[in-house]
């Protein structure tokens, strides 16, 4: 069965390592914070100027001066720090952030990503996405395998305006975990109960299948 968004987040959380500094994009990526393994130390970076992003506040405790990059009210944790936006993107650009997780509309087989603009519809802007994908050491995309029209989002080439080129390392969808290699998408894992045939049929880009593909969980 295809995964729901919580399970996609859960699978991505398995990529976390102790001591990692991580930036989680808006949408499914923010859910990864709920699945950080017990006892593992992970510091979440919020690009509007906070390291050590904590959980949402309890009722009545929200502070208008303390929000995340999605404009939601949040809290801090022991060891948190505040800084300005230039320092925030400075630490991203200089490779101090170990892992970036973000959503996408399209990913190409050579690791291009499109996630900020649909021509003809309202364009809201790229925010920090272009900086993140141009700089992060490790970029994982969390998205559905197909769009609402049933078309593959894993393509030979992106058709939508690009956010970045040659940057995505791994993609986790509701159907599969795939790695970007010089030869295309390499299938690593499939969602429990989902067949390799289904994944092949829904992947428009070049797909490499070398072995028996295990289930994610």
């Amino acid at each position, binding site marked *: 069965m295809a995964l729901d968004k919580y399970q996609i987040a859960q699978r991505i959380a398995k990529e976390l390592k102790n001591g990692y500094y991580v930036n989680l994009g808006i949408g499914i990526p923010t859910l990864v914070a709920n699945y950080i393994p017990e006892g593992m130390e992970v510091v979440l970076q919020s690009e*509007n*100027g906070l390291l050590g992003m904590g959980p949402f*506040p309890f009722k009545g405790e929200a502070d208008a001066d303390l929000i995340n990059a999605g404009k939601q009210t949040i809290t801090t944790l022991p060891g948190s720090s505040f800084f300005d*936006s230039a320092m925030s993107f400075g630490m*991203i650009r200089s490779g101090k952030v170990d892992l970036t997780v973000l959503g996408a509309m399209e990913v190409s087989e050579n690791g291009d990503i499109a996630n900020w603009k649909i021509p003809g519809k*309202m364009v809201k802007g790229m925010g920090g996405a*272009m900086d993140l994908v141009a700089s992060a050491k490790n970029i994982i995309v969390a998205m559905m395998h197909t769009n609402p029209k049933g078309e593959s989002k894993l393509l030979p080439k992106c058709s939508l305006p690009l956010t970045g080129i040659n940057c995505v390392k791994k993609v986790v969808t509701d159907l599969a975990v795939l790695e970007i290699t010089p030869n295309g998408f390499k299938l690593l894992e499939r969602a429990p109960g989902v067949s390799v045939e289904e994944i092949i049929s829904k992947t428009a880009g070049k797909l490499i299948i070398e072995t028996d593909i295990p289930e994610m969980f």
Partner: protein
Amino acid sequence: MKKVFNNAEEAIFDISDDAVIMLGGFGLCGIPENCINALVKKEVQNLTCISNNAGVDDFGIGLMLQKKMVKKMVASYVGENAEFERQMLSGELDVELIPQGTLATRCMAAGYGMPAVFTPAGVGTEIAAGKEIRNFNGKDYLLEMAFDADFALVKAWKGDSMGNLIFKDTARNFNPLMAMAGKITIAEVEELVPAGALDPNQIHTPGIYVHRIFEGKNYEKRIEQLTEREPA
């Protein structure tokens, strides 16, 4: 050199039509509420506004859009208001979308006296069009220019009569960078104290960058996305 003003109306006395203005804030967090209200009352026209976001329909820069005071918006993420979308799609409002990190760094460059900076954000995308690309150590970077703003309107938590500023939590964001970058920087603070009341070790923006400062009033500090969790 008197920096302390009574209020926003007096502090913005020389902001006139066609000005290029930086406004601090991320979303609605850390925005110069009093200066925005004063600008709206003054109905200055044809402004170019540099700010990460454009507010919402009835708050922040959205108030300026309602009065059609803005000719051009330079931002990284916009569209949380219907009037903004309408003006943009009709061509009334010129919008330049730039990466958030590039926005921050172009402010920083201006404040640090550097004419331009190289950044990898946007290489290979449509925003690279027309820009110089240079390769350093095997990686491509775009040449981006420092901003040139007539005024910077910033919001801080505390400030003193010499213009030193301290920011609070995530209301800091672009404010320190814009404070450095503005030809004239106007700072509104929640608490204005005499010089000497602030510990020099605690100061985020030294007063040399701040030309005018006033204690603001009636901050709404609106929360855009109130998000709470249930007790365990």
